[in-house]
């Protein structure tokens, strides 16, 4: 739950005769994440080339079949129920596909060419229609002695630009037909300027009218002939469509089966390409989750009696960038997982912060938005959204809203707030008694701010500890000791808190945790100085621990001076960020106060008399608070997590577990 699923590295030695059966098992259940075994010791270079060619051939067949299906208007359908155990024989399948292509191609090519022809005829008609009334042979426009003239279509976006480009050349430019995409235009000018006009027209992508062979005379005459030809072409297209539809109907299932066979064969051969080939055996390497290991082993042994299986459970300690990460999926944690996923994918061995965030997110939200009534409304809204009864597009967030609502209701109970009514207002308007179980933030503003800072300190300390825990697990000793959230930085933070406790003393705002640390019998000012120096030169010490050379980047006096300036900036930045990180949690208290304040503002708008206007104002005010303030508090909670909490210990960057699978939908998932 706290970590990604435990993974096992699996290495198989597969006899050549069982190659396909084993590959079928590995690809068939969506549990095996394959790695490339071609670098395995003893594997001959180029051994995969035959399979590579085969995979390419299957891929080509698959694409050709997809093209045929597309040409026939057949969808790929669902994977057939029949199980294809072996790869299809290329030599058998290729002629079959070629025959089908040939059958389809003739009609399909004919159809395409007729469609092109129709398109061309329609385009010519489209260009001629605006000049239908001109009683002039169209060829005389082209062969004029003094006039350069051009009729054609142009991309609509280029019309203005073409006119602009010809601003300094005498010309006549008319839009004969306005069309959203392809307006028909006429451009004319003197023959002397023909090169300029032609260049401008060409650069504006003006496509001049070109009459198909056999058309001449006046526009009206040409239009009449064109219409007749268009009708004939449309008739031919209909006939070809009928032929193709009959063919599609009779071969639909066969084509789908062929496509599925080609797809399966392609996936299997793609997998085999990544196997390492020894003399009589193949090496297969990859990853399986520990939970699926046993069932996979049984299936593999059923597929091959002589298979050798070696498994190496992978330790979670140490830096494991090559281990794929499969997260534990849980319906109830899915929205939190989504929030974590937006930040990063955990790497193997790294603590998955989902569970921690499942607690802290609603907790901080509830503390800022504490109201029993509004919290319950959010809870109900969340449940309705999760069950797709309302706002279906937000279903993924339904549970998160419900959790936050429940937490807000709990804090509302502690704060004694219900739909904004607090203290005497509850008795006066709602006619029952409801006291804060803890205290009302509005009545103890400094107290709630101090508690908020304390909460932040505890969460930040937890962040430091988790970061150290992660560093110990990954055996990153340099960062454990001298990292931004390492031991030295943590010690400096504690000393810093002690000094903060000393400075604020027994004022109301003083964080109790800081005061408690300060009460320890330790020389905190001296410790703060020592740890500050260590933090200041932490980059240097990290290089020492890691054995990284040079210890200081740059050489000579300039290099040392630069190093000192950078170190000073480091400590300056550390102090500022520690202070800001800690004080950042003040917002939790501030929002709790603001929540009460906003309710008071609504009561002042509503007046004192509990008439209809009063209750309508209270209703609208509550809707506003739930919608607007709820959203802002949600953002603040997210911000606190992304900036102040996750950044302390969570790095992400893990490789996703992507198992081999035969079904396209799962493959994509």
């Amino acid at each position, binding site marked *: 739950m706290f970590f990604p699923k435990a993974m096992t590295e699996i290495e198989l030695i597969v006899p050549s005769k069982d190659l396909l059966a084993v590959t079928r098992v590995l690809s068939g259940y969506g549990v095996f994440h394959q790695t490339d075994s071609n670098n395995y010791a003893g594997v001959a270079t180029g051994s995969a080339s035959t399979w590579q060619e085969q995979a390419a051939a299957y891929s080509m067949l698959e694409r050709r079949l997809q093209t045929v299906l597309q040409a026939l208007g057949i969808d790929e359908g669902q994977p057939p129920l029949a199980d294809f155990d072996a790869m299809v024989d290329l030599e058998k399948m290729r002629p079959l596909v070629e025959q089908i292509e040939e059958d389809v191609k003739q009609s399909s090519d004919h159809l395409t060419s007729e469609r092109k022809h129709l398109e061309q005829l329609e385009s010519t008609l489209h260009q001629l229609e605006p000049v239908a009334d001109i009683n002039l042979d169209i060829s005389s426009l082209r062969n004029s002695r003094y006039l350069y003239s051009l009729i054609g279509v142009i991309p609509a976006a280029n019309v203005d630009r073409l006119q602009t*480009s010809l601003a300094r050349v005498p010309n006549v430019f008319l839009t004969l037909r306005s069309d959203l995409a392809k307006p028909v235009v006429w451009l004319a000018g003197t023959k002397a300027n023909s090169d300029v006009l032609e*260049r401008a027209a060409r650069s504006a992508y003006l496509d001049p009218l070109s009459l198909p062979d056999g058309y001449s005379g006046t526009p009206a005459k040409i239009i009449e002939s064109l219409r007749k030809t268009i009708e004939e072409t449309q008739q031919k297209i209909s006939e070809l469509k009928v032929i193709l539809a009959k063919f599609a109907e009779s071969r639909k299932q066969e084509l789908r089966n062929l496509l599925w066979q080609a797809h399966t064969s392609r996936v299997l051969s793609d997998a085999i390409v990544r196997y390492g080939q020894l003399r009589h055996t193949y090496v297969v390497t990859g990853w399986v989750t520990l939970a699926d290991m046993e069932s996979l082993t049984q299936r593999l042994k059923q597929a091959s009696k002589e298979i050798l299986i070696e498994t190496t459970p992978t330790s979670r300690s140490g830096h494991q*960038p090559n281990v794929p990460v499969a997260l534990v999926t849980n319906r109830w944690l899915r929205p939190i997982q989504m929030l974590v996923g937006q930040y990063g994918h955990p790497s193997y061995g790294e603590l998955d912060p989902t569970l921690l965030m499942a607690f802290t997110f609603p907790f901080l939200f509830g503390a800022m938005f504490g109201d029993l009534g509004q919290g319950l409304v959010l809870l109900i809204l969340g449940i309705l959204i999760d069950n797709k009864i309302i706002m279906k597009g937000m279903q993924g967030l339904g549970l998160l809203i419900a959790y936050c609502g429940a937490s807000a209701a709990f804090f509302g109970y502690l704060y004694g707030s219900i739909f904004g009514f607090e203290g005497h207002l509850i008795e006066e308007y709602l006619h029952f008694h409801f006291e804060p179980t803890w205290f009302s933030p509005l009545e103890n503003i400094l107290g709630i701010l101090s508690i908020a800072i304390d909460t932040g300190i505890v969460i930040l300390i937890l962040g430091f500890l988790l970061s150290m825990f992660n560093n110990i697990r990954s055996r990153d000793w340099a960062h454990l000791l001298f990292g931004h959230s390492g031991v030295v930085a943590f010690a400096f933070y504690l000393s810093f808190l002690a000094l903060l406790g000393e400075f604020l003393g027994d004022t109301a705002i003083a964080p109790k945790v800081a005061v408690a640390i300060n009460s320890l019998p330790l020389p905190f000012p001296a410790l703060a100085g020592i740890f500050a120096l260590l933090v200041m030169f932490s980059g240097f010490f990290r290089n020492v621990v890691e054995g990284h050379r040079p210890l200081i980047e740059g050489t000579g006096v300039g290099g040392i001076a630069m190093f000192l300036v950078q170190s000073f900036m480091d400590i300056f930045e550390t102090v500022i960020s520690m202070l800001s990180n800690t004080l950042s949690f003040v917002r939790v208290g501030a929002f709790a106060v603001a929540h009460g304040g906003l309710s008071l503002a609504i009561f002042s708008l509503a007046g004192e008399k509990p008439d209809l206007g009063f209750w309508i104002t209270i209703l609208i005010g509550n809707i506003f608070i739930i919608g607007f303030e709820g959203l802002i508090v949600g*953002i603040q909670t*997210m911000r606190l997590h992304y900036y102040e909490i996750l950044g302390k210990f969570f790095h992400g960057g893990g490789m996703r577990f992507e198992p081999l699978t035969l079904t396209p939908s799962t493959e994509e998932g």
Partner: protein
Amino acid sequence: MAASGVSGYAAISARVRAMYSSLLSPQDLAKLSDSPDFSSLIGQLKNTVYAPYLEDLKDKELTPGRVDSKIKGRLADFYYSVIHMSPEHARPIIKQLYRYFEVQNLKAVLRGIVTDPSWERVHNVLFPMGTMTVLPAQAMVEAGNVSAAVELLQGTMYYETLSFAMKRYSAEQSLFPLEVALDLYYWRQLWQEAKKLQGQDRDQALRIVGSLMDMNNLMWVIRYRVYHQLSEEELINYTLPFGYHVRDADVRAIAAGADLAAVVGRVYPGIPDVNMLLEEPRSGLPQLEQQLKRHVMKQCLAAFTGNPFHIGLPLAFLVLGDLEIQDLTVLIEAKSSQMSDEEFRPYLIRSVAA
């Protein structure tokens, strides 16, 4: 309006700020620049946020091209996150901004078809857009010729533009008209998406998108004039009539033969030594482009001050992410070809102390 701004951009603003803090720091960039050679640079890169993108590369695959392609995966991830977290009304412009890489991929595919139609080679230079692309890139390359490849784009937003330009390709056998048409189409669409926004979103988008557009438009008109010696009317037709700083009158003035330095100096008074840069345009233009990119970077950094609840923040962050990749590409190229500090540092967009 303010409320919808806050509600719409709250989550994305927090996420973008978190991602913004993961961009390389000046110290990181200085360390990378100081790497003595390509392998040390890769070693240093593996100590940065780019490490996960390089992990699965084997030693023999550590070529400049492969590394460059891999690190772009981070920018693709940025886009993926931002698009998915953005409010509905803001997505079209972010998606259109992302299409820049799709247009570059489309150009790369077409160039590949003309020069060396091998899918493996073409694939290595494509931006890793994952599933967020409409290009059937492999099928296009395998189609073997430009005309058949363009036909495969039927149903995509590029088909109409390319089908117009294909007439010229057939006549001239040059990809130039196709590439210009694609560029103009892309930037017009981006400008339109920015114009569709309202209020502060519109202002911010026009500022960031407009700055990018200014840079491109200005470089186009200068390059077409200097390198291609195109006529005035061609220069006008191959450029855009809108922008943030660069007005149509400026572009038309350059097209009509006005003094380049005078126009650029007037539009960008902050760029130093414009006269010197454009005295010898062929050597000065790359440096001018760097200055313009720095100007864009400043515009993007400015989006991070003040009210964060608008489209400017995600747009600026994505552009900054792209500029970071461009700097890394310069470093990768420089270190792999053993260039000296003096040779490559002027081409870094972010200044790095020597």
